[in-house]
């Protein structure tokens, strides 16, 4: 039996082919206009799963970077306060060493001025110990809204004693800098200033106040003892600066690692989601060409009929 070819069959075939070509063209057009290879989960279910993971990884890294920048700022502020304290200790030592070691009439006359200066510097050290960053006490530990160091003053406003608020002062504050990695972004509040409590070993305020009082009373023996202690305190505070500096460096290393990691993730995400433009445009042109061919062929096939010739 010969195969009949009917008009509706021809028309059906032509329409089906043209529709198919149009649909492929539309898919390519969507890819090019959105720039995305995947526009819905069914375009590539596995790719979408990967993209969800990568995106949440990228968002996590962004948060880590923001944690690092907050932590870096606070560590820098703490180092600034500690360095300033370290400088002040050096100055106090220099000023008073002259007075203690060279007891000449000249230096005796200088004594009241030196004492005034030392008082000034004690105040500055006290301010450093209560330093704030964005309204929060840097050396208060978890008690960030309460002054960690409390002073007692005499009638002239000179500091006569300094005590600490024990609650929460040595609590570490942690920031997450990479998945599962936390770095302490504060310096323990007692450690640089009075690690062993009031009057204990390495109590900066105790030492400088004893030095000032000895100079005031002229007890050069006690002054010399206090000066020795002060040198220990200087060591101690520099250790604190070194610890903070170490943490800062750790954060900087992590920051640049995070950045690289984030770039890799971005690239990976782009590989998965983004369309290869050159390829897509070539495909589009080719598909367009096929569509034109199918239209022309359709027009040629459908048009003629026996009726035209009888």
């Amino acid at each position, binding site marked *: 039996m010969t*195969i009949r*070819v*009917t008009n509706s*069959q021809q028309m059906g075939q032509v329409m089906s082919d043209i529709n198919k070509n149009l649909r492929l063209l539309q898919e390519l057009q969507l890819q090019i206009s959105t720039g995305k290879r995947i526009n819905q989960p*069914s375009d590539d279910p596995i790719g*979408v799963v990967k993209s*969800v993971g990568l995106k949440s990884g990228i968002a996590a890294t*962004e948060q880590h970077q*923001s*944690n690092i920048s907050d932590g870096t700022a606070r560590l820098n502020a703490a180092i600034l306060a500690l360095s300033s304290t370290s400088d002040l200790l050096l100055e106090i030592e220099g000023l008073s060493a002259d007075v203690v070691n060279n007891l000449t009439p000249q230096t005796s006359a200088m004594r009241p001025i030196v004492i005034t200066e030392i008082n000034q510097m004690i105040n500055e050290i006290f301010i450093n110990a209560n330093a704030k960053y964005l309204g929060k006490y840097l050396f208060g530990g978890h008690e960030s809204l309460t002054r960690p160091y409390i002073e007692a003053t005499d009638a002239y406003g000179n500091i006569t004693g300094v005590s600490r608020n024990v609650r929460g002062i040595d609590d570490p504050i942690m920031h997450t800098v990479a998945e599962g990695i936390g770095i302490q972004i504060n310096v323990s509040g007692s450690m640089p200033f009075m690690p062993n409590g009031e009057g204990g070993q390495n109590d900066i305020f105790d030492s400088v106040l004893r030095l000032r009082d000895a100079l005031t009373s002229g007890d050069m023996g006690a002054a010399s003892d206090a000066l020795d202690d002060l040198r220990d305190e200087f060591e101690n505070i520099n250790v604190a600066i070194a610890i903070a500096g170490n943490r800062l460096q750790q954060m900087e290393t992590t920051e640049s690692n995070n950045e690289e990691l984030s770039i890799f993730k971005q690239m990976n995400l782009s590989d998965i989601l983004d369309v290869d433009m050159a390829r897509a445009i070539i495909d589009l042109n080719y598909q367009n060409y096929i569509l034109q061919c199918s239209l022309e062929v359709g027009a040629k096939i459908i048009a003629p009929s026996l009726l035209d010739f009888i």
Partner: protein
Amino acid sequence: MSFEQLSLGTEAMRAAQGALGVIGHNIANINTEGYTRQRAVLVTNPPQDYSPGQRGTGVHIDAIKRLTDEFTRLQIEEENQKAGQYEIYTKLMEQIEQVLNEPTDTGLQTAISDFFNSFHTLANTPEDYGARSVVLGKAQGLVTKLNSLSRQMQAIQNEVDQVIRIKVDEINSLTERIAVLNDKIASVEAGGIQNANDLRDSRELLVKQLNKILDVTSFEDENKNLLIEAQGAVLVAGTRSIPLSAVSDANGHLVPANANSGVPIVVTGGELKGLLDARDTMIGQTLDKLDTLASTLIEEVNRLHTQGTTLSGHLTAQGDVVVSQPAVIMALLTDNDVTYPVQAGTFYITTYDQVTGAVVDEQAITVDPATQSLNDIINSVTLAFSGTGSLTAGLTGDNRLQFTAGAGCQFEFIQDSTENTDDSDFLLAFGVNTFFSGNSAYSIALKDSVTADPDTITAGKSASPGDNRNALLIYALQNERLLNSGTTTLTDYYASIVSEAGTESQTAKRNEETQTALMLMLEQRMASSTGVSLDEEAANMLIFQRMFQAAAKYISAMDTVLDTLINGL
């Protein structure tokens, strides 16, 4: 020689005219859906005995036949079920994909990431109102996203219900018309002389349309009636149709059922199958998984949240779980009251002086759900703090747990001296000091007290304002494998929901494409055998036109012959 040649010519003309009529009918119906081309079957008239032999007596139209292709037609009916099923299923899968809205930067994954990351923003500055409002904003974003995912999925289910109702009406209309046609075809063909060609075309088209909606089987009985069944349920018997109706199933969704008995019919194909599969299986599963995701999120975040401390202390703390039977031992409370069960353990409360922040009283309350009721716990809390009078526990008017600080006091749910916290899930179970309320993607919301006072977000593990430890713990939840018995993180779980929907949709699209190609092939084959070819009709038209002319000429010639015979002699 007689006049019979004249009648032979007349009959030939009549036959040619009849055949031309059929050709006209074919041409007129070239684009009519379901039309099967027809042919006039010409048969020679019975011959006459004559000397020297039999003599032909011309032609007549014996029948007008449909040139149908039963085999292909049955195949189309069969495949049309699948075509209908895949087509509608694919559309619904696409809708699910649109609701999930991935991959974008506004999907649920972004909301989850933003929410957890905001807890580290809080950890960076637990003292600040700003960080707390960021947490609230991001949490609200997550809650809204979960709510809308759940609502949109349910909206698709409701839409499916509407469509099922419409499809059931369509089935009833189709079966009714088939029953009417059964009657007509039977009466036309009763004598065995006439073929009800066009009526049969109509009936076959209706069966094809019916098959697209529902898988039915049909066969013609000896009375030319088409009997139609769907998995044993009779839809058309003789000249009678049995209507269907849409009835609610156990989940409150509509299913097709016998209108009289109310018994649901078994659906194994057609659009109804696609609708039911999408609604009950795919969307149902996706909704269940979203609920699991939301419930796990609520449980884990709330558990940690109940174990933390606020910025400014509680003056009062209310639960958001309404307990209908506070006197019943807690182990027997049903899910309607308590989603997250109470364990045996201890929870702690410390009261502080509002002004100095000094500890007034701290108490450990042991909880044993197997022997104690909520009322028992309330009594033991009040008794424990009766010495200082710094805290009382009770029930609100609508039976929610409530703790109230005494005059000049505030409290936290920790033991100040040891920093111990609730290990009994008691606070979690009754929604005290929690972050979220609700227990599903549909019902998840921010706890009222948290939105009213962001200071009650628990960032710390102690009464110090700079303590960020609890915020860090909540932040770390995003990397913890909380689901599928400790193998999957929240984000991964969500990714699996998206990939399942994507894979299902991809498969559905491929099935639909294959089915469309198959249907096209069958329709083409059908068109090849039963469709009208204009060229063929034109050729036939020429033949019958010439036949008519020749027959007329023949009559004229016979007339001349007779004229010679009658007048010329």
